[in-house]
């Protein structure tokens, strides 16, 4: 039986009837239309589907949409405000922290969470914070650079 859920996504309220089994990632991508978060695996390893739920990042492929009922979701699409990129986005761009871009939305969300919790991370802490996000293109080095750069910019 379908169930009505109401969520605030990227600052706007959405309400839909969904099957309980619908995964949050499918709800965001296919019902609401936020296709920034991606599906890269089914076992909660790759992190491409990462979104923030009540300001804590989660893997939206391992969560039912009904679990997010009444809560607030931030996807990569909600990160820039009024056309101004978030410092993490800007840093990813400047430091060439992406190639194919598929992991990037999740990677940026994870980097943002790190800097919220630890504004001056060491390289080791950056790598540790990104353990839940796989990138097959960059070798991670430019991503580490980007997070470091974003940290100094946000701290400035």
């Amino acid at each position: 039986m379908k169930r009505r859920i109401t969520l605030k996504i990227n600052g706007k309220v959405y309400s839909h009837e969904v099957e309980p089994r619908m995964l949050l990632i499918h709800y965001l991508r296919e019902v609401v239309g936020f296709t920034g978060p991606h599906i890269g695996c089914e076992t909660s390893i790759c992190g491409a589907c990462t979104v923030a739920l009540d300001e804590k990042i989660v893997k939206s492929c391992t969560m039912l949409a009904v679990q997010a009922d009444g809560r607030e979701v931030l996807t990569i699409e909600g990160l820039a405000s009024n056309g101004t990129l978030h410092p993490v986005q800007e840093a990813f761009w400047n430091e060439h922290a992406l190639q194919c871009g598929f992991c990037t939305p999740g990677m940026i969300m994870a980097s943002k969470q790190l800097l919220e919790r630890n504004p001056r991370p060491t390289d080791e802490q950056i790598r540790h914070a990104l353990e839940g996000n796989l990138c097959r293109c960059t070798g991670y080095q430019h991503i580490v650079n980007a997070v470091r750069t974003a940290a100094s910019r946000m701290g400035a």
Partner: protein
Amino acid sequence: MIPQEFEYSAPTSLEEALHLISDGSAKVLAGGLSLIPLMKLRLAAPGHVVDLGRVPGLSYIREEGGKLHIGAMTTHYQIESSALVHSRCPLLAETAAHIGDVQVRNAGTIGGSVAHADPAADYPAALLALDAQVRLVTASGERTLPIQDFLVDTLTTALEPGELVAEVIVDVDVDGATGFCYQKMAHAASGFAIVGAAVRVRRSNGRVSFSRVGITGLAPKAFRATGVESLLQTPDDVASAAGAVADGIEANSDLAASAEYRCQMARVYTARALRQALARIA
């Protein structure tokens, strides 16, 4: 990869939740990190899922009667970042920080983890070293089990149908006189423990006056290595005591590690954890 259909309930009180699961047919959803991947692979296909996410009062960390009480729905991140846990039970905070990744720790819960009883999960090692107890509730009552009785076998616990993990209760180490450490060799892909050793130690007059060693990943269920504890008489005994960690254990074996290698890694990681724990004693 899509779950099969199921009926979904999101009770808003513990009573309601217990009522919904009372006939034992429903599957309880805590953080979902164990259950949902299985459902997506269709290895699990519960007809009825009861989501504890909206039950109030299951997420807390409080000190009571000389113990820390942690509500079943408390997330790994809450534990990892709690000032109270850091000051009263740093081993648990350290262990929580080793679980999975940031996203997993944000959503996964201690109750969900212990109820799943994965033989390579991190918490059980620490809980064994912390003489933890698991409080279980049903619609008609409750009981409290020591963690070693709660964990029965691979993916198998003492939970009866209709029963729910309500909280986990652990010892506190208030004075800084207890050294602690969790060390694990992580599986390169899954992050699960190939072996993990959680230890607590105290010293007195140059001797080890107290020790607890919990081991995960090595055997079908996490266990307390009492053999190691009893051999650890002085700090100089670390190597020989840790050498006994796999005695009498039928070790797990998989692609990542044979039983023989796992046993040896258990010895190495137990020794490393003990050394660091001893070094940390204030």
